[in-house]
C-alpha cells in the first residue's frame, strides 16, 4: 500500500489524533487560547472577599444607585463589563470611561424616575465579602473612587 493510499484509508484516524493533540497542547503549554483552551473557567480557588470594579449613579443627596450592564459597558455580559472597567482603571482611563457612562445615561433620558435623579457617575472598585452579600448581610468592606463625572441634563 502506498503512503498516499494509506493516508486516504486512515485520514480520519490521523485527523482524530491531530485534533486531540491540538486540544491537549494548551494543557501541556499551560496557555489558554481560542478555540483551543485549557477551559479554566472557575477552576482557581477564589477568596470570599474580592475587589470588583463597577460604576454607580449618585443622586443629589449622595445616594448611590446601581447602573445596568448596558449603561456601564454597552454589553450584556458581566465578564466583559468587569474586564473593560478593570482595564480602564489600570490604564488610568477611569475619567474617560466615566464620561462615556454619563453620556449613555444622559442619552437614555433617564428611563425611570430613579434614573432621572442621578446627577453624577462614579467609577469605583469595591471590596465585598461575597458570601455575606448573598446571605443578605452587609458586605462592603472598602471602596475606592477612581473617577467622578456629572450627568448632563440631570434633574
Amino acid at each position: 500500500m502506498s503512503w498516499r493510499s494509506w493516508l486516504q484509508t486512515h485520514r480520519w484516524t490521523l485527523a482524530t489524533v491531530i485534533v486531540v493533540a491540538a486540544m491537549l497542547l494548551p494543557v501541556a503549554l499551560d496557555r489558554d487560547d481560542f478555540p483551543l483552551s485549557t477551559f479554566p473557567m472557575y477552576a482557581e480557588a477564589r477568596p470570599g472577599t474580592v475587589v470588583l470594579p463597577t460604576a454607580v449613579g449618585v443622586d443629589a443627596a449622595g445616594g448611590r444607585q446601581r447602573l445596568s450592564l448596558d449603561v456601564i459597558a454597552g454589553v450584556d455580559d458581566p465578564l466583559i463589563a468587569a474586564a473593560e472597567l478593570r482595564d480602564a482603571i489600570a490604564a488610568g482611563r477611569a475619567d474617560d470611561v466615566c464620561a462615556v457612562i454619563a453620556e449613555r445615561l444622559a442619552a437614555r433620558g433617564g428611563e425611570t424616575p430613579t434614573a432621572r435623579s442621578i446627577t453624577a457617575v462614579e467609577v469605583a472598585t469595591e471590596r465585598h465579602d461575597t458570601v455575606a452579600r448573598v446571605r443578605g448581610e452587609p458586605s462592603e468592606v472598602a471602596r475606592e473612587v477612581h473617577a467622578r463625572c456629572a450627568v448632563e441634563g440631570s434633574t
Partner: protein
Amino acid sequence: MTPPVDRGTGRKDPNGPGRHSTRNGPAAHDATRWPRPGSVAPPERLAAVRILTGGFAVAYLAVRAPVILAVRDRAPGTFSPVGVLWWLDRPLPDAAVVALLVAALAAGVAFTAGAWFRVSGPLFALAVLLLGTYRSSWGQLLHFENLLVLHLLVLAVAASADAWSVDARRRRGPPKAGHDHGAPLRLLCVVVAVSYAVAGLAKLRYGGPAWASGDTLANHIAYTATRLELFGEAPAPLAGLAVRHAWALTPLAVASLLIELGAPLALLGGRWRDAWVASAWLMHLAIAATMAIVFPYPLFLVAFAPFYEVERVVPWLRARRRRRRRAFNRTPEPDPTIGVDP
C-alpha cells in the same frame, strides 16, 4: 440476495436494499454500538448533525448580533489578539466586523441547507472562528463558543452534505464512494469528551484537590452573584439558596469533577453515553441556575447530537404522522341527526 448491512448498527438489515433499519439491536453487548469504533453511520446522521449544528450556529449569531457588533465600541487600547488573529496589530475596521458577521450568516444558511457545501462549509466555519476569536481578543478570553467552533471546523471538512442537502438533490444520485460518515461524527464526540475532561483537569490543576471541598464552588457562586448585583442585574435564582446551604455544594463539586473527568465514558455508547449526557446537561442547568452562566450549545443539547442516531427522528416523526392520519381516517363521522328533535 444477501441483506445489506444495517448502516446504523453494523448488523444485517432484513428490510432490504435502500431501507435503513430503525431497529435497536441488543445494544448492551453490541461491540459496534454507536459511537464506538467499528460502528458505522449513514450519511443521513452526519447530515442531521450538520443541520442541527449549522441551524444552531446561525440562530446564535443572529440573536447575538448586537453583542457581537458591540466589539466595535471597545477601546482600541484594550485590543489583545489571540488565536488565529495573533498577528493583528490593531483592531479590524468596523465595516470588516459587520461584513464578517453578514458573510457568516449567509454562509451559515448555505451550510445548514447543504448548498455549495464545499465552499459554504469551510467559509462558515472560518467566519465563526474569526468572529469568536475577535470577541476574545479584548483582554478576556470567552469560553462559550469553543466547542461550537471546533464542531463546525470538523463538519466543514467532512462529507456533511452527502444527504439531506441541496447539493444531494442536485446530484440526483448516490454520494461519492469512499466517504466515511461515521468517523467525522466520532471525532465530534471525541472533541466533546476531551473538552470536558480538560475542564475537569483544569479544576484539579489550578484549584487543587480542595476544589472538591465545596468552598471554592460556594465562593464562585457568591462572586458571580455579587458581580451581577454590582452591575445592576439580578443574581442567579438559586445563588442565595446554594450559598446558604453550602454543605450541599461539596457533593455537587465532586459530581462536577466526576462528570468532567468522566466525559470519555460517553464514547462507550449505550447507557454510559446516556448517563453522561444527562449528567452534563444537568450540570449546565445547575450552573445557569446558581451562577446565571449559560453555555447555550450544550444546554440546548446540540453539542451532544453527534452521540446519538439523530437521523432516526425523521422517520419516527413521519411514522407518527402516518399513525395519526390513519387514526383520523378511521374515526367515523359524527351522526348529524343525533340530538336533533324530530
